[in-house]
């Protein structure tokens, strides 16, 4: 395979020689018939269709349910590479939890002048109702997905934190399952760190954050907006895998000061609710009054320690894109350590000097809305038309504080299998961290998203991205 000029290929490096973590796989691949492997790709697709992993693309009514493409070439990380990511994610997640506690209590970091308080004061992700409120066990972000990219020098950098309801972990699990089914020989006699214990770890981790009112073994439930949600499959999958109830708002009531699920045998109290419903919709008595996806009264029950809500409401202030650029300061402030993983360099358009630079270099930069997600409302300068650039320039000038800008980072590539053989495609990595009181556990690997289109740098599944199985192997 010819690596893409100027990009770091994780299998072939910059020089074209197979890198150490890929050596065993490379040998296996060299002996394989391309035709058999292509047939396997088709087989994988059939498996996914059968298990029902599909994805609703936002803003596309025509293609309501679609399969996320799966590529059979694994993304492989060596143990020492992984150790850096793992420690970096743990450090980051600890710091973000400390930050959230500070934001909703003493606000020392603002008093110390490390972050402008206006970023929080005017931020919709900041929830006043959480002021003075300590979540059970002190955990704000029970599940965090940290989006990591790898630069042209092979250095890992954090692109984004996801502290609200990160999705994608079901793909991590299903991808591994599928690979093991299709290529058992790859797993025989080779130490690839398992990820299959994630649901059990999630369960243990949530149980460890049970509320003071829990009495006996904690009862867990997953709150889903329902079958029309893009990630409904994942909600059902995780509930099933960790032995939790799958509930919608209409299944829940307030009974004796607790949140309880209606069952034919009477109400079943819920101790920990893993909610996949956004803050805004969580409780119509407190947030959006028109929400039918939320549980009225749940915030009141939460206030008195009657339930654990995972992730805690108001955690979005920690993964806000305006806050993102301050995460290195956040890490140093709360841990006293230097960040193990760097941020991608970021211009805050709220600062006049940065705005000037961004406007001047718009066609080279990626501009993001500070509150957006999923690749919406964003400008990829090098790929944008003159008109798009013009329109975005206007937006930036009208509401500069609404945007940040980053260089178009030369995302690393990993080969995918095409009809013409291996071809480099750009990837990112979303490792999943589980937070329990006093412990942050990172599932080895995570979800690798891959831009299936040649030369594309957008890996979001909503924009046609696919996924790969992600391995952590011994050095």
């Amino acid at each position: 395979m010819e690596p893409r000029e100027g990009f770091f290929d994780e299998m072939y490096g910059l020089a074209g020689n197979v890198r150490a973590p890929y050596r065993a796989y490379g040998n296996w691949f060299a002996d394989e018939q391309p035709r058999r492997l292509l047939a396997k790709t088709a087989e994988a697709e059939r498996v996914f269709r059968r298990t029902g992993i599909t994805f609703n693309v936002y803003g596309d009514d025509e293609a309501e349910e679609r399969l996320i493409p799966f590529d059979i070439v694994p993304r492989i990380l060596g143990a020492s590479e992984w150790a850096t990511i793992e420690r970096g994610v743990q450090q980051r997640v600890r710091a973000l939890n400390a930050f959230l506690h500070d934001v909703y209590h003493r606000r020392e970091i603002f008093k110390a002048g490390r972050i402008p308080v206006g970023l929080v004061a005017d931020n919709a992700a900041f929830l006043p109702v959480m002021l003075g409120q300590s979540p059970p066990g002190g955990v704000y972000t029970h599940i965090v997905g940290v989006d990591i990219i790898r630069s042209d020098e092979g250095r890992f950098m954090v692109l984004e934190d996801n502290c609200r309801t990160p999705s994608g972990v079901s793909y991590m699990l299903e991808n591994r399952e599928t690979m093991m089914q299709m290529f058992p020989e790859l797993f025989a006699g080779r130490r690839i760190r398992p990820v299959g214990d994630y649901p059990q770890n999630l369960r243990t981790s949530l149980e460890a954050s049970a509320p003071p009112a829990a009495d006996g073994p904690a009862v867990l439930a997953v709150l889903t907006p329902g079958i029309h949600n893009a990630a409904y499959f994942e909600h059902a999958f995780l509930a099933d895998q960790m032995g939790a109830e799958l509930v919608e708002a209409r299944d829940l009531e307030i009974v004796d000061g607790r949140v309880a699920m209606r069952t034919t045998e009477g109400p079943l109290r819920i101790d920990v609710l893993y909610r996949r419903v956004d803050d805004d919709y969580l409780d119509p008595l407190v947030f959006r009054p028109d929400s039918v996806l939320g549980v009225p009264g749940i915030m009141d029950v939460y206030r008195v320690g009657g339930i654990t809500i995972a992730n805690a409401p108001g955690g979005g202030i920690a993964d806000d894109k305006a806050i993102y650029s301050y995460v290195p300061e956040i890490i140093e402030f709360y841990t006293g350590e230097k960040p193990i993983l760097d941020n991608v360099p970021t211009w805050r358009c709220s600062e006049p000097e940065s705005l000037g630079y961004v406007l001047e270099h718009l066609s080279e930069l990626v501009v993001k809305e500070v509150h957006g997600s999923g690749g919406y409302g964003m400008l990829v300068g090098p790929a944008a038309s003159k008109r798009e650039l013009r329109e975005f320039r206007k937006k930036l000038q009208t509401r500069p504080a609404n945007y940040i800008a980053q260089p178009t980072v030369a995302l690393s590539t990993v080969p995918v299998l095409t009809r013409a053989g291996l071809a480099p495609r750009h990837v990112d990595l979303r490792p999943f961290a589980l937070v329990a009181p006093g412990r942050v556990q990172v599932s080895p690997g995570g979800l690798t998203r891959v831009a299936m289109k040649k030369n594309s740098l957008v890996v979001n599944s909503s924009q046609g991205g696919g996924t790969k199985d992600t391995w952590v192997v011994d050095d």
Partner: protein
Amino acid sequence: MRLSITHTTKYRFDEPVPYGLLELRLCPRSGPTQDVEWWDTQILAGQRQVRFTDHHRNVVELVRVEPGATETIVIATGDVVTTDTAGVIGPDQGANPPWLYERSTKLTAPGPNVRRLARSADRDVADLDVLHGLSAAVRDAIDYVPGITEVDTPADAVLEAASGVCQDHAHVFVAAARVLGFPARYVSGYLFVEGGQEEASHAWAEVSVEGLGWVGFDIANQISPDRRYVCLAVGLDYREAAPISGVRRGAGGETLEVDVSVTEQGSAQQ
């Protein structure tokens, strides 16, 4: 002044209600302007679920309507001894940052009408005079006409309609005060009116003024709250300070009957 208050709220449902909740902010708390001698909230056909003090230091109670009820009644009653402090409540006892009260909400979002009104305020005078001027401007801009606005009419739309009730006056004033950079909040409570003909439920506003702390402004009546006022709850807007809000499942309509009586007790010693 010793005020005796009875606040009765009656919900009548056309069909038995399978599931319903009421959230109450119906328990005044003692402070520099009021001393709550006793207070009691009775609930008929409903059970208390939780009770806590929220971040504005309001006492909040969550009540579940008795399943199958066709009527639920909440009766809050008690005696409050009030003091006239010329509207000055003083610094906050809670731990909230002052900027919390500069945040706008959906009901107090500063649209073009609110901004225009705020801009019209004379700013070359002392803070208190700026606010009194603003209060007068709000009162002038909105005629007291019940039935035009709803509880969820945002401040900007109130100005558009140019009419509303005390709640709307308070929302517009709070929104405009924030535009001018003052932390401001909405207050729900009671107003004693001699003769007792007028509505005794009332809403006004408080603004944090440098050197004084919170100062009350009754925009509807163009005065600062005195001994006739009892504060029930505060918040960024009506939703956070509403004495009762509710949600329910089930078909059929409902009728709401509210009766508030505030009387002066003869033995008042001031």
